[in-house]
């Protein structure tokens, strides 16, 4: 039975979901089997995109302070959202 989960996160990274944070986000999402979509709640015209797509994330134009809504369906839906939540909470901490 696949699980469905939703989560709203606030991006506090000063560069928003720009190139490097977006790349980390996509890589993290790609670890999971679940289908994950993202929507930018802070832009009225925003639609849902695939969280595993760099192009998708770039289109969302997520800037500092924006809220994003994550939606995941699949066997590891909870784990996927937790991992992404942790990444955002750590402000996309990059390992040297």
């Amino acid at each position: 039975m696949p699980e469905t989960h939703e989560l709203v996160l606030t991006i506090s990274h000063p560069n928003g979901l720009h190139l490097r944070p977006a790349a980390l986000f996509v890589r993290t999402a790609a670890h999971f089997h679940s289908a994950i979509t993202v929507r930018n709640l802070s832009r009225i015209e925003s639609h849902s995109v695939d969280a595993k797509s760099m192009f998708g994330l770039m289109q969302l134009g997520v800037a500092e302070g924006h809220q994003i809504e994550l939606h995941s369906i699949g066997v590891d839906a909870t784990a996927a959202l937790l991992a992404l939540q942790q990444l955002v909470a750590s402000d996309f901490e990059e390992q040297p």
Partner: protein
Amino acid sequence: MTRVLHGQSGAPGIALGTTVRLELTDLASRAALPVEVDVMEHFKRVQMEVVAQLQGVARELRDEGKRDEAAILDAQALLANDVALTEEVRRRAVDQQMPLADAIHAATEAMTVLLSSLDDPYLRERAVDVLAVGKELQQVLMGTTPVDTLLSNAIVISHDLTPLETTTLRKRGIAGLATAGGTSNGHVAILARALGIPAVVGLGEDLMDVPAGVPAILAASSGLLLIEPTAAEVTLYAAERAAMEATNHHRLAVGGLLDSTHDGSPFELWANIGDPSEARTALRYSAGGIGLLRTEFLLLDRMVPASEDEQYAAYAEVLQTMAGRPVIVRTLDIGGDKRLAYLPSINEANPFLGTRGIRWAMRFPHIFRVQLRALLRAGLCGDLRIMLPMVSTPADVLWARAEIEAVANELALSGVDYRPEVPLGIMVETPAAAISLDRFRGIDFCSVGSNDLAQYVLAADRTDATLVQRYRSDDPAIFRLLRMVTATAARLALPVSLCGELAAEPQHAIALVGLGISTLSMLPAAIPQIREALQAVSLPKVKQCAAQACED
């Protein structure tokens, strides 16, 4: 008559050479694929090849310590292999039966248009990255390797370059780069700076009229491209280039690297290290010096303190590795949260306000003297400077200076070689030192220890994670106090640097340079990012950031 084109400086330097045009061959004229090959399978192979090339170059850059530049290529690799791109290409190549090259072109064009329409200037710039990925995919598909046949005096002229092309050009040893598009913060400029290729970007469409094979001068620091220069101009720029190279060699020889903001205001990035072996890492990240060598490794986690000879060997190793660049050694900073097993522990209600740093040295002067002896001897190996931690009154410095003199006398009497005049400085980490810096007469330099200074100014224990989040080291109170420190230091002509986590955060580093602290010391791995951030800003901008940091 010389033709002059004006653009933006992408990376500094002067190149004299011959123009070479670098453009993708006309795609339409190339043969179509054999029909029996499954088009999406073929595309997959092309994607994998581009990803492999990008990751290969990223790895090389990372090995050289150019982490941020490597990240640009990593992100490109993700784009090249993106699910959304694959889908867009599939729709065109399979559903609409478009030739694969055209499908890639159309798909990346469409995505670029989409990104360009967003009201975010950063994303509009990233649209260029998508185009670059499209170009890279097409190049692999067509088997074109446009950068194969270049001479070392080539001034490469192009509409725009992909990150992969830019990094590949370095291997060909070209003289300089000129692009019609791009900005001084674009990826071509960032990579050219990291790779040391003189570059002028944003020269406009006029550049595309410049023929190949004509003599040219790229005065990259001034953002100029001179086509068919006169003999007098060639002589002039050749002399200027020779002078620049001489300055570079000189600066490298004496320490600081040639680093400056976008408009030429110099800064220096040094490294904080806690072990002699890390000096090599610092050099790899092109640190201009060691701004903080912590010496607690000589005492902590051992059964007995390191002997004088062992200490001497450790300091000498760092000084020799740094080859003439400045090395600031902080004397033992024990106490606070650092304790030693083999010494009587001091019972304190408030260790951070207790016997730590120089106060600890006063308590155990025999251990301090061993360190001083080793330091004065090692002073002969390079540009050594001694820095005292946790100083709060001028008497602290007077005491240490008397100890140094006593040790120097001992060494002289016993006929041991040592350096008599080692510069002596203080850490500015207590509010008292920051407020009354002018009272510390006779010191040669000071360095702000922003971690401890923040803890003492905000009265918030920095080992308590909850407090650290609420009482941050970038509080306006800290920047205001630093403004006082730099004003006093400027009046006394006292060199001031900063070693602390504040320096490793790009926006704070910019504000610190704006306050007049142009020597920043940080963990080696943070240097490339900070260098990139500071090279991209101008003097008015850093001043504005400094003013903002002092307010809410």
